[in-house]
């Protein structure tokens, strides 16, 4: 191809700093540089990204502190946008917002503090993987096709032709054996020439990885959290937001979902959150045992830790890095859950950078392109038919993003824009948190658009018509909520007995079903079948006791029934003892009810 070069427009590989202002640096002599290209800034070669170009001046946001930087220092171009390194070895890593393993950073820095200018690759270079070829010499391979596999813990890690490849006929496929990620495992020859493929490749984090088609999500993402699975379910490939002011239990809920969700791979992005909390996660995650495989959960997780005191631009990048990892595992035909805590910190990072670039602010100082950014993140969730000429596999990425609205006010821009792009919304409520009602998901303000497709799922998985119980329970809770309003004014004693029975039934659902203790050995995870049977009994409670009220049994007698305690405590019963405990609780309830009935008749 012919290149047209104008006067004084020769490309240069090294520019020169002309301005330093916090994390924003400007450099001239940068002709040919591209937006979003990664550059190495200053003598210390700090990582930076080009965010604006005018003439031969490029404005760069630097991912590390710029103290000590001077005008005139060099800026080196790399020609590549911010990319994630993908390949075997990713699982089990704890990375910073730029994909650098934090353990390696500690080794390089020689201490507990993160110093700057450290360069370490994401994937271990010395580790060997046992490669089993799946393609043969002479096969025509296109992006997504599987060349071979390696076992990474319990996960079969597929080595695929990367999406950026031109494809071609396999001239060489490595025989079964042990290789490092740097060794060539296949050579393709195609229209674009010869191409050596290694076990790892790089992918620009801001560009979604391609797939064949997007499918309708219809499979429940089981989290074992009753209020979520039953009332506001998430699905594999779904997008969920969980907004809540501080102290409403956002992080605990996210941790629970990450721990228990029935996904193959979990990517957790700690974005601008507390260091100690991150440490808690780093301590507990490796100790968790996967209920399905009996192996450590960490073996199928990737954790990204960008705490609030780490550089702001890296915080903005961390979310995209995380979602790129998630898509990579999706492309292997796996189900992935990505949890991000918190997307508000990410949006604020965006605001901070925008204000440093002196862009005109929109709502509450956020840049006008905030909604586009939020959409571009949540739109990367989905259940898809994966790439590859010989593959008919489905993979998914579910995104669960925490939102930390300032002042707990859901009308702020991040919450509002997020609501538009998600399929489920778990609204955390300060009042519930005050009552130590956890998870503090408000059943009147939350929603899930995924309910529709799930009736059949519940029927086939548990044999119960869960959606019917759900509707009944919701109606009861709604009625109770308006009765509580009345009671707040006139006192509970002034309500009719029938109304007080509604309150009692609702209270049973709240205490016995909605409240779930994340730290209780049994209660922390509730399997779907147990959820369905529990809710069935609780929703039948009102119908069972209504005749007593009608017959004139005083409410105080009903409230004093001993069997209520057994019902409330059903959640603490281990699944294997559950059926007998349930039968016993129900027969005790019925026995007590009939004796009360007999008393009032006598």
């Amino acid at each position, binding site marked *: 191809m012919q290149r047209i070069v104008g006067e004084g427009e020769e490309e240069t590989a090294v520019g020169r700093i*002309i301005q*330093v*202002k916090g994390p924003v640096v400007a450099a001239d002599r940068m002709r040919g540089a591209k937006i979003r290209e990664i550059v190495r800034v200053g003598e210390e070669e700090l990582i930076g990204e080009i965010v604006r170009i005018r003439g031969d001046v490029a404005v760069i946001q630097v991912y590390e502190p710029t103290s000590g930087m001077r005008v*005139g220092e060099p800026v080196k171009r790399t020609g590549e946008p911010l990319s994630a390194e993908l390949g075997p070895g990713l699982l089990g890593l704890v990375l910073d917002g730029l994909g650098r393993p934090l353990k390696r950073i500690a080794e390089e820095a020689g201490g*507990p503090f993160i110093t700057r200018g450290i360069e370490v690759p994401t994937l271990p270079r010395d580790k060997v993987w046992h490669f089993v070829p799946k393609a043969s010499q002479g096969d025509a391979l296109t992006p997504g096709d599987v060349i071979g596999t390696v076992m990474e813990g319990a996960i079969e890690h597929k080595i695929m032709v990367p999406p950026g490849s031109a494809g071609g006929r396999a001239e060489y496929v490595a025989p079964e054996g042990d290789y490092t990620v740097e060794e060539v495992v296949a050579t393709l020859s195609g229209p674009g020439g010869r191409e050596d493929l290694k076990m790892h490749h790089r992918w620009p984090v801001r560009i979604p990885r391609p797939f064949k088609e997007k499918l309708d999500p219809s499979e429940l993402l089981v989290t074992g959290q009753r209020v979520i699975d039953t009332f506001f379910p998430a699905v594999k490939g779904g997008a969920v937001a969980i907004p809540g002011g501080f102290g409403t239990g956002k992080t605990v809920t996210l941790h629970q979902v990450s721990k228990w969700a029935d996904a193959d791979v979990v990517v957790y992005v700690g974005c601008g959150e507390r*260091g100690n909390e991150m440490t808690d996660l780093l301590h507990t995650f490796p100790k968790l045992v996967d209920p399905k495989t009996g192996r450590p959960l960490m073996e199928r997780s990737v954790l990204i830790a960008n*705490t609030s005191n780490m550089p702001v631009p890296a915080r903005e990048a961390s979310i995209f890095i995380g979602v790129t990892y998630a898509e990579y595992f999706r492309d292997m035909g796996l189900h992935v859950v990505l949890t991000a805590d918190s997307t508000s910190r990410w949006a604020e990072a965006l605001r901070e950078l925008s*204000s440093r670039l002196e862009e005109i602010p929109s709502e509450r100082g956020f840049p006008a392109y905030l909604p586009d950014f939020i959409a571009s993140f949540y739109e990367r969730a989905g259940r898809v038919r994966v790439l590859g000429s010989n593959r008919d596999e489905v993979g998914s990425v579910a995104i669960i993003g925490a939102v930390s609205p300032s002042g707990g006010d859901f009308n702020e821009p991040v919450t509002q824009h997020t609501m538009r792009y998600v399929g489920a919304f778990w609204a955390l409520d300060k009042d519930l948190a005050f009552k130590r009602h956890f998870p503090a998901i408000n059943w009147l303000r939350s929603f899930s658009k995924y309910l529709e497709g799930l009736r059949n799922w519940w029927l086939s998985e548990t044999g119960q018509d869960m959606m019917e119980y759900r509707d009944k329970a919701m109606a009861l809770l709604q009625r109770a909520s308006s009765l509580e309003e009345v009671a707040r004014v006139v006192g509970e004693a002034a309500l009719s007995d029938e109304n007080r029975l509604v309150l009692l039934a609702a209270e049973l659902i709240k205490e016995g079903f909605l409240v779930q203790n994340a730290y209780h050995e049994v209660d922390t995870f509730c399997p779907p079948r147990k959820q369905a049977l529990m809710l069935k009994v609780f929703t039948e409670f009102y119908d069972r006791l209504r005749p007593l009220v009608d017959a004139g049994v005083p409410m105080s007698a009903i409230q004093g029934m001993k069997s209520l305690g057994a019902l409330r405590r059903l959640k603490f019963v281990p699944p294997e003892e559950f059926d007998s405990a349930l039968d016993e609780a129900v027969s005790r309830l019925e026995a007590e009810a009939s004796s009360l009935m007999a008393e009032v008749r006598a």
Partner: protein
Amino acid sequence: MSQIYGLTYRGIKAVKGPLVVMRSVPEASYDEVVRVYSEDGREWLGQVLEVTSDSTVIQILGDTEGLDVSSLVKFTGEPLRLPVSMEILGRVFNGSGVPIDGGPPVRAEERRDINGAPINPTMRDYPDEFVETGISAIDGMLSLVRGQKLPIFSESGLPHNHVATQIARQAIVPGKEERFAIVFAAIGLKHDEVLFFRREFEKFGALSRSVLFLNLANDPVIERITTPRVALTAAEYLAFDQGMDVLVILTDMTNYCEALRELSAAREEVPSRKGYPGYMYSDLASIYERAGRIKGRPGSITMMPILTMPGGDLTHPIPDLTGYITEGQIFLDFDLNNRGIYPPINVLPSLSRLMKDGIGRGKTREDHKEVADQMYSAYKEGTRARELVQIIGEAGLSERERTYLEFAKRFETEFVAQGYKERRPIEETLNIAWRIISLLPETELTRISDRTLEKYHPRRKPPTGGE
């Protein structure tokens, strides 16, 4: 001792509030410290905010009165540093780390960048050692652990200084010998408040184990930005180099944020909520996140920032952003204070996020969590009954509501309220809790397991000594 090499330049073009704009200088590097000298021999400390190919913007620490375009600027080539060694104990410094107690300069073991560096999250040790403060409301309901950052959300006129000094005086980790120190940063405080802290530290003999950094209300506003940073640099040295358990008190963070806003306005930055800069969250995080413990090192930094909420508004950006970074908050309440309850801690909006791992068997007592949960929800119920009384009068309450009303009253007067000098061991705190819980019928005790009831409920077990 401040003999630092560097080149001196003339060429100031403009002075605007705390900002000085001068011509471009090849040596100037971002964030370095400069010294500015006027012709009549006065000296200022400043920091480079921006370097470009035609100008250098400097922020002066202190008042710029008397500074003019003929002043000289000397570049030191390094960021603001604090000299550290064990000699800092017992000393008093200003907000830039210069001794103001008339003593000699500190013989430095090392001079450290006051901005510190982020702790690698994989190198942190998770805080899980219970700190007994001897204050029932805190120990029982909002347990503090070593390495936690737990702010006091207060308002002007509330006794937050007393609460902070009582904690500083009484806090121990049960069963552990310790080397402890207090680092105190006064940010824009009134003189009498500083005097109060000094006197109290002296009274309980902690002055020799304290380091004081004072930026008083009439000291330069800009120095409020550096005060917490120099204090934390000292704390990091004592904790992570010398293995001491350091309690850092930062007061008043509201003044810090005001200074940040003032500076941001002077820089003509685009403001965010209520005029505070958009980077306030990251800025506060760079202070608060310096608390913690580090793997393989004995010391710890436990941080207690105090902030007075403007207008008592919890959703104001200062408490709001703080709450998102810190591990909970202790909320002081005007209403409780007016009713003569000291410490006026309202446990309902208060929280300690690290409590769950610092309490229970082997740490405090096995029933602790259940007791705290039950007390919390019952108190919540009681305050609701109290609201109801205002609408329908006490006569309109049900029996159950009346019980909760009584619970709330005794919770406040017997559990929360205690003397400034009173130190209650955790055992005593939990026993008082049980005494109040036993007001409620057992069917209401839904947060407590049968096993715990059997073992600890006063009506079930024979009372043991004291009570």
